């Protein structure tokens, strides 16, 4: 498993918010983490990024990237890993970019920080932008001049340009129009198939997970209550919570 989480426990003082026995994402695989708000799924993302302590949480357990243990690594090492090996995109794309910088500058700076020269960086970013179906010209714009969908794609392009192996996507399409969402999901599928990226896709929208993810883990109150291939879980949930979630999803009714 490229990303392997074992016995992960995230706490705020005595209160445990994440208690995951096992969760893994393989090469070229999209794993969905489904749950409602308060289920601990976002804290799990932060823990993988080594950022849980910034909100005052303590992390125990094991998170391995290609066999290398991440929990307990010094911040300096983690900074090197973030973005280049593990990338993340979040729900609010506009908040991911500093509004006073052009998006291209942010991307280039990130690449140079990870060791590329100026021209190498520009080349990679341009190529990545084309890969997400955006014109590299858009890099000269400020975040406020781009739509939510475009910003999300730029964020993905950055992950691609950095050759990230693992992409953590925390509700990346919840704030997007459904047609734009479809494009972003298509893009994620391509990243998996074309570039072999591992994606951990966190969402409360089961329908999106059903369409996108190869495997799914259902999270409730910090623990994974059910896990397995998507088709299997969606058609035959074992856990009552999963069943309840599935029952709650409105469906377009089919007539005649």
């Amino acid at each position, binding site marked *: 498993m490229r990303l392997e989480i074992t016995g992960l426990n995230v706490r*705020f*003082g005595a209160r445990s918010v994440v208690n995951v026995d096992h969760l893994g994402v393989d090469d070229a695989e999209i794993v969905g983490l489904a749950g409602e708000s*308060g289920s601990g799924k976002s804290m799990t993302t932060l823990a993988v990024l080594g950022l849980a302590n910034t909100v005052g949480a303590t992390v125990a357990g094991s998170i391995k990237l290609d066999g290398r243990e991440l929990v307990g690594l010094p911040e300096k090492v983690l900074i090197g890993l973030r973005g280049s090996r593990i990338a993340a995109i979040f729900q609010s794309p506009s908040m991911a970019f500093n509004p006073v910088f052009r998006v291209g500058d942010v991307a280039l700076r990130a690449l140079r920080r990870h060791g590329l020269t100026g021209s190498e960086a520009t080349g990679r970013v341009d190529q990545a932008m084309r890969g997400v179906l955006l014109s590299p010209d858009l890099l000269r714009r400020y975040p406020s001049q781009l739509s939510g969908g475009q910003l999300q794609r730029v964020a993905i392009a950055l992950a691609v340009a950095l050759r990230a192996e693992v992409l953590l996507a925390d509700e990346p399409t919840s704030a997007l129009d459904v047609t734009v969402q479809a494009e972003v999901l298509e893009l994620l599928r391509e990243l998996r198939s074309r570039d072999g990226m591992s994606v951990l896709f966190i969402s409360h929208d089961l329908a999106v997970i059903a369409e996108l993810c190869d495997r799914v883990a259902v999270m409730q109150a910090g623990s994974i209550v059910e896990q397995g291939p998507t088709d299997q879980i969606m058609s035959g949930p074992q856990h009552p919570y999963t069943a309840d979630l599935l029952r709650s999803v409105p469906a377009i009714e089919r007539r005649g």
Partner: protein
Amino acid sequence: MIEVPEAPAPAPTPAPAAAQGSRGWLRSNPLLAFGGAISALIVIIAVFAPLIAPDPGDAGSATHPFDVLKPPSAHHWFGTDQVGRDILSRVIYGARISPLVALFVLLIACAIGIPLGIAAGYFGGWLDDVIMRVTDIVLAFPALLLALALAALLPPSMTSLTIAISATWWPWYVRLIRGQAASVAGRPYIESCRALGISRRRIIFRHILPNAITPLIVQVSLDVGGVILTASALSFLGLGAQDPTPDWGLMVSEGQTYFTTDWWVVTFPGLAILITAFAFNLLGDGLRDLLDPRRVILR
């Protein structure tokens, strides 16, 4: 059929549970408790000054030529000033002066600032334009110079000082309240009120006002120190308190020349200003937290 209520709103960050009972209240609002205590102390000192001060006469025009510039001692805890007056007594009586000026100035500023701010923020349009332009004009004058000019026109006294400073203070509050009122007025719950046909008067007083006013409470407490300092600057220029009034600011100004040799003349009144401003600041912070309904405990 009544449904079992869903789980209560998940806390965004695990805030310490607000304990019940009076002791728990104290523990969860240390700022308010401390600030409130000191502020109350200052008020008590002001009220009971004649009983507390060792030499009440020194707060007035008494002079003691043989006790000039004596350092702090058992007899004079804060030492004596340049005409031999007991500084402790003067500082105690001073609690009646500067904070009172600050109180009146801020009250007046609020009395003008809040209605104008809400009118501008809620109604918008031409009313907003008119109010803000007038506010901008007053703000265009450097505050101290404006207060100076006004104070110079009036006979020097604490009353004139109060009027002069109030005249320069209200525009900031109009700005502050206007911004908040405008922001609140745009929120869905205000739209709901309008859609429900709730009267405009009720919307303004029951919904806009309480929600717009919170930043003002903190601002006012922060301004206590600011007003005291402004008052002292004006007193220094002879436009406010006159000797022998034991105004702290005046005492600091008067004692400046002796600072290097007789530090106590300036230090104790200065400390009084510092502590008063700090106490009200804490009080304001604590009040703001207390007034935030998110902190209210269920039953």
